[in-house]
């Protein structure tokens, strides 16, 4: 079953050119499910980096603009899109030239798969 979810995400990953990895983690950056290609930068997949999203959305929600849903960071070589699905966080790491809209479009395909992952994380915490 877990492999099925992984396979579906793997297929989605291949559909977007320039997307290197999809990480589904808890808010501390501990991975629940990882789908990586060999081009994924190792440092960006570490919890120390991924957990900053949790802090950022906590602070961002104080701006009076409502709850933060998605964070998009573009760097010189990569772009990181992180989605708030608390208790889960979905992180996409892609090349800087990857179409950001395509990455955002994956949300509706990944969302139905999250139910079991959410249960796993919610039980543990």
């Amino acid at each position: 079953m877990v492999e099925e979810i992984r396979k579906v995400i793997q297929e989605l990953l291949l559909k977007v050119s320039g997307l290197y990895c999809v990480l589904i983690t808890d808010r501390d950056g501990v991975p629940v499910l990882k789908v990586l290609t060999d081009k994924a930068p190792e440092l960006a997949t570490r919890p120390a980096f991924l957990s900053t999203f949790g802090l950022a959305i906590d602070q961002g929600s104080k701006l009076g603009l409502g709850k933060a849903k998605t964070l998009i960071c573009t760097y010189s070589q990569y772009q990181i899109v992180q989605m708030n699905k608390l208790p889960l966080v979905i992180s996409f790491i892609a090349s800087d030239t990857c179409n950001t809209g395509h990455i955002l479009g994956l949300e509706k395909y990944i969302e139905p798969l999250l139910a079991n992952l959410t249960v796993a994380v919610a039980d543990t915490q």
Partner: protein
Amino acid sequence: MGCCYSFFCNEDGSPQRGEPSERTHLLVDPVSNNSNIPIYNSEDFLSNSNALPKKTDEQSALNRILQETATNVIDVAALDSHNLQQHEYVERMRQYSLKLQQACASNKLPPRTKMCLLQDIPAPEKVLSSESVNPDDLRLINSAVTRAAAAISDIKVEHKEDMVVMFRVPD
């Protein structure tokens, strides 16, 4: 209503003042009555009902304000990134994979959403990337279809016999 009329009566100094008329207000001086209503804050009610010593109340209210302010302030320098220890990380990862296996065993995966518009074609990229139809063929198809359509529209029912036939019941 009463409020409005009483206001106008005072303004124009009506000669009928004191006597009941269509302008006499039914409620006695509603404006001044309204102004006497004391204004309470919700906090006053809380402090009165609890009947605790006032100083503690003030202290707790101040603490609350301080707390609220602290949560509303975005203090980037004070953000402490809670770094997980390696063993904690490994332990949690193990727990997640275990729980995930359990959750997946008990719950079925939801039916997959439509991934592709051309679901009935197994390899749409091959079909789409194949050469387009020859213009001559296309013209032939178009003319054939046009003629077929014209022929179909010409189809008529030929009337030969009476539609309603009387059954002759033998006497």
